[in-house]
């Protein structure tokens, strides 16, 4: 525009258009003209700027739109989808099975699914069940058929396996000593040629389909009693069927969807996976009227015993007044099968990375489970604590509903437990009767939140202390003289045989004959009398009415108690101080009740039933109830047996705890 020069004024011309006229007019007003020109230039500039801004803005907006919520709504963790394993379209599985004295293994398509070369372990017949459509391992068991009765367990298991499943057998060390005819016949019916003739220290492998073809069998005979058969290695191929053929045709409901998921993964749960008539997985027991424990969370403490958990949850979900939403199963370890069981029943389960070993591991698992329970249900004042090896009585919640207010109101209470340590078939009688005891039985109990949060949780044994949580809870520092309420007839039944501190013999001796209530809706008797002071009145009333037994007779003999029913009897035993349980332990032993440590006492008094009579035992002179002893009666003293036997019993006490 530098060259721009004002043009000399030109006279208007006729022919010129209006435009030119206007132009010249403008030109005459230089200032105005200049203004117009600058205006136009400015205008251009503004347009350009607005344009650029618009473009930028639109682009940014578009970018944001695309990213949607890049900063705010994306998951922080890069959740890269793990590519799923390509679906195995292969129709044939390569199976390798090895049997020898010290090692067994099974490999399916090159993947080892069983390997056991531990010394002094895993003796007997190993059984693996594969899904015939997917080839997945559905169950793994070992039956020590060198020992008695294990073959019966194996028959039971094999009968539960659905038709069509692939079964793999292999023997480690010895598997024939207690393999009885029935079991051999079952193996024969599966197609084994060798099973009927299996003998001492033979090696054997077998792969077959239940109710169908045999894929292979190998056998090595033991040449002499002192030696084992040569190791055998069976290599064979298994043809897979289609998924549809491997599943049952249950109607398509939510429940059956859960059932299908479960049944295609695991085996050995019997009729729950039966195609024709599957057992229900939802129970809908009658609701309880005025249920005061409906909102109390239930923590089920579990390990890797899925069959136990299955049995336990069935009984729990069948109990009247159960609220499945309040149940959480805490699994100690990342075991799949227990979680499958939990999901089968539509419950929620939480897995816990194991901390520490043995008893301390159990103890840490308890702590984590209890803390989590109160976190998940912050409103709860109590929690019910159950273990996976308990049957739950049909009136379990009714029992708690009637008694829980005591735990809320009476500070002298430590817990309510469903278990009476002394409640055996021959010593428990009255389902409506409750006791106060100074020991903490566990095995289905209610914990007060304040007790846990204020007292137990902060000083819970740390992982390096190999303590049992329940022994720790029973220690005077924790219990502080408080008592638990228990029923005469237990509302739980301890069926676990396999466990940390448990074995078959021990179970038979101390748990098998425990009484278990099966009557629904039991109305508890005089619950108010369980309060601290009322209970003393009640005991005094009982002792006042009790007949003193003949102390010259042997208290172990049946004739010690007259052949009556419904009477109250009392006997006095020697108990020098509070901790003197010499005579009591001997008495407990001969009565075949719990004698491994002292349980069920209340101020030197034990209450149980003999021959359907209420039977009271008072320790004199330690018990405050000693004053009820007529002066003519000499308290019974029973000699402990020779020392060695006593020494054996002591470690057993520890072993008896918490299984």
């Amino acid at each position, binding site marked *: 525009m530098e060259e721009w020069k004002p043009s000399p004024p030109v006279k208007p011309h006729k022919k010129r258009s209006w435009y030119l006229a206007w132009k010249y007019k403008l030109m005459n007003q230089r200032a105005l003209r200049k203004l117009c020109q600058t205006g136009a230039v400015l*205008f251009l500039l503004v347009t350009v700027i607005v344009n650029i801004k618009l473009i930028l803005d639109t682009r940014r907006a578009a970018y944001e739109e695309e990213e949607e919520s890049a900063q705010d709504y994306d*998951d922080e963790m890069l959740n890269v989808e793990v590519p799923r394993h390509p679906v195995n379209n292969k129709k044939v599985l390569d199976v390798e099975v090895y049997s020898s004295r010290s090692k067994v293994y099974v490999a399916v398509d090159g993947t080892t699914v069983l390997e056991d070369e531990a010394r002094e372990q895993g003796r007997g017949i190993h059984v693996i069940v594969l899904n015939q459509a997917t080839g997945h391992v559905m169950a793994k068991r070992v039956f020590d058929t060198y020992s008695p009765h294990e073959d019966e367990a194996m028959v039971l298991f094999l009968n539960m396996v659905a038709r069509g499943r692939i079964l793999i057998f292999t023997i480690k060390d010895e598997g024939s000593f207690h393999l009885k005819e029935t079991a051999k016949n079952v193996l024969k019916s599966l197609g084994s040629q060798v099973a009927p003739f299996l003998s001492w220290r033979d090696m054997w492998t077998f792969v077959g389909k239940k109710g169908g073809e045999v894929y292979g069998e190998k056998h090595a005979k033991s040449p002499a009693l002192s030696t084992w058969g040569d190791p055998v290695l069976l290599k064979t191929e298994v043809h897979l069927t289609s998924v549809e053929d491997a599943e049952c045709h249950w109607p398509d409901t939510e429940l059956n969807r859960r059932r299908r998921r479960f049944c295609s993964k695991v085996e050995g749960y019997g009729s729950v996976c039966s195609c024709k008539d599957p057992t229900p997985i939802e129970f809908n027991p009658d609701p309880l009227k005025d249920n005061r424990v409906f909102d109390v969370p239930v923590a089920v403490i579990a390990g890797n015993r899925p069959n136990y958990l299955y049995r336990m949850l069935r009984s729990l979900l069948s109990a009247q007044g159960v609220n499945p939403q309040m149940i959480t199963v805490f699994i100690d370890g990342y075991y799949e099968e227990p979680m499958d069981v939990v999901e089968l029943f539509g419950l929620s389960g939480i897995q816990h990375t194991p901390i520490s070993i043995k008893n301390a591991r159990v103890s840490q698992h308890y702590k984590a489970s209890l803390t*989590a329970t109160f976190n998940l249900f*912050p409103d709860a004042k109590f929690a019910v604590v159950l273990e996976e090896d308990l049957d739950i009585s049909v009136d379990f919640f009714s029992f708690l509903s009637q008694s829980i207010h005591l735990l809320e109101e009476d500070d002298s209470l430590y817990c309510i437990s469903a278990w009476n340590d002394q409640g055996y078939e021959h010593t428990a009688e009255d389902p409506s009767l409750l006791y106060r005891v100074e020991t903490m039985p566990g095995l289905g109990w209610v914990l007060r939140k304040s007790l846990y949060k204020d007292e137990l949780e902060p*000083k819970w044994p740390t992982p390096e202390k190999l303590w049992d949580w329940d022994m720790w809870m029973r220690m005077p520092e924790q219990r502080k003289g408080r008592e638990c309420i228990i029923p005469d007839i237990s509302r739980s039944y301890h069926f676990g045989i396999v466990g940390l501190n448990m074995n078959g013999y021990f179970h038979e001796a101390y748990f098998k004959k425990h009484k278990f209530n099966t009557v629904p809706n039991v109305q508890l008797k005089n619950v108010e009398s369980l309060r601290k002071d009322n209970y003393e009145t009640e005991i005094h009333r009982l002792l006042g009415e009790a007949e003193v037994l003949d102390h010259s007779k042997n208290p172990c003999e049946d004739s010690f108690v007259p052949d009556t029913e419904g009477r109250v009897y009392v006997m006095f035993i020697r108990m020098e101080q509070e901790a003197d349980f010499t005579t009591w332990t001997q008495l407990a032993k001969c009565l075949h009740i719990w004698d491994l440590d002292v349980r069920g006492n209340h101020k030197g008094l034990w209450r149980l039933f003999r021959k359907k009579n209420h039977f009271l035992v008072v320790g004199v002179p330690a018990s405050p109830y000693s004053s009820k002893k007529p002066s003519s009666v000499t308290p019974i003293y029973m000699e402990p047996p020779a020392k060695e036997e006593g020494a054996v019993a002591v470690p057993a006490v520890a072993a008896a705890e918490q299984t």
Partner: protein
Amino acid sequence: MQKINRNVVLALLSLTSLVFLLFQLCYYKFYLSQKNGAAFSKARGSQSGQDSTRWHVVRKFLGLLSSHNIPVYLIDPLILGLVDKDIEQIRSSPDGPSPECKYFCAPRDFTTFALLDKMWKHDVGLFRTAEKMGFQWLKIINKDPRLDGMDDLSGMEIPLHYIFKLASHAIHLVVFYERSGNFLWHGPLRLKQHMDRKFVPFRKLHFGRYPGAYEKPELLLVSIDDLKVQIPKNPSSFLEEMSHSRFLECRYREARAFFQLYPDDASLDAVEFRKKAKSLLHLAALTLNNLGVKFWLSSGTCLGWYRQCNVIPHSKDVDLGIFIRDYKADIIPAFQKAGLPLKHKFGKVEDSLELSFQGEDDVKLDIFFFYEEDDHIWNGGTQAKSGKKFKYLFPKFTLCWTEFVELKVHVPCETLQYVEANYGPEWKVPVKTWDWKSSPFNVQDNGVWPIDEWDNVIQIY
């Protein structure tokens, strides 16, 4: 001719640019209104009457939930804002038919409802019915924060948000969980990689940017626009609460790492101190909440929360912060009434106020008052014997909720800056000997109180 050409070109250019600019402005305005919705749609709503799609979707949704016995309540801030204006009228005529559709007809992308987790059974049937009714739905799940603080527990992931979409409208259902500390919590909305980012415009959601903490609301069943819905009994206080609801989870993973390095003190003394500190904090929170005084965890207590998610056992006191603008004269009598006698009072309301109350056995409750300046916040300290004043500087911060020893309490949202200001970059290392006059990273000398004021500004009981 040259001149004319130039002029003509210029004029033409101006003209086209004018036209173009107008066009651009129009377009821009249209674009803006589409983006924000608000101004534009309000106009449309009132002009063209109503948008019945939204109303129909909400009605269908409420029907769906009531058929499954799932109680929800309305927490949509825009509707609650409208409802709040007419709350008296709505309360007084709970059943009256409404003459016009006032609340549910303003066209919006979302309507937001809340669901208490414990009120429903995670019933799969709900979603099946929803699908049959034509809803598309999206579930946002994530880890359960109530198990996060626990060593190595892995529970199932829990649903935090649901979105039900029908036609052009979507229902945002926020799931609230009860937490220890007697409050409700909702989770953040985070999309996992495989999720459909375009399912709804997620940015427009009112809930989910951050997790939030709320009191348990009292509900009121009302009928608005001929729909029966539950709303918070006091919508305005709910909206107020919503604006300050951001929740911070404790850094449990870091706390675990801390305890790996410095094992926790499990001695009986530590257990006892923690118990006392916890009950003192509960008592203090109760007292201050009753007075309506907003407070936060400060100093050592805040460090304990941030570093180890627990009370530091060797800290020996409980520290709280309060903005001086929230100061009330009732604070001292209220604490005394609660059984906490005043131990000392330093400073005055205008300057460096600090109160100290005596809790059970030696455990002390220190309350520091914070003064806001343009670019920082500070609190003061006073040495009793010399009358020396100290000043502790902090960068500006806002307050967030958190859960601490079973209590819902405030902490500075910018906790790291706060802790770093106070304890320096080495805050991760436990220090057992601490001098409040020299140890803090942010302490400054602030002169001496004039002697004639001492009686007032240094009071020891």
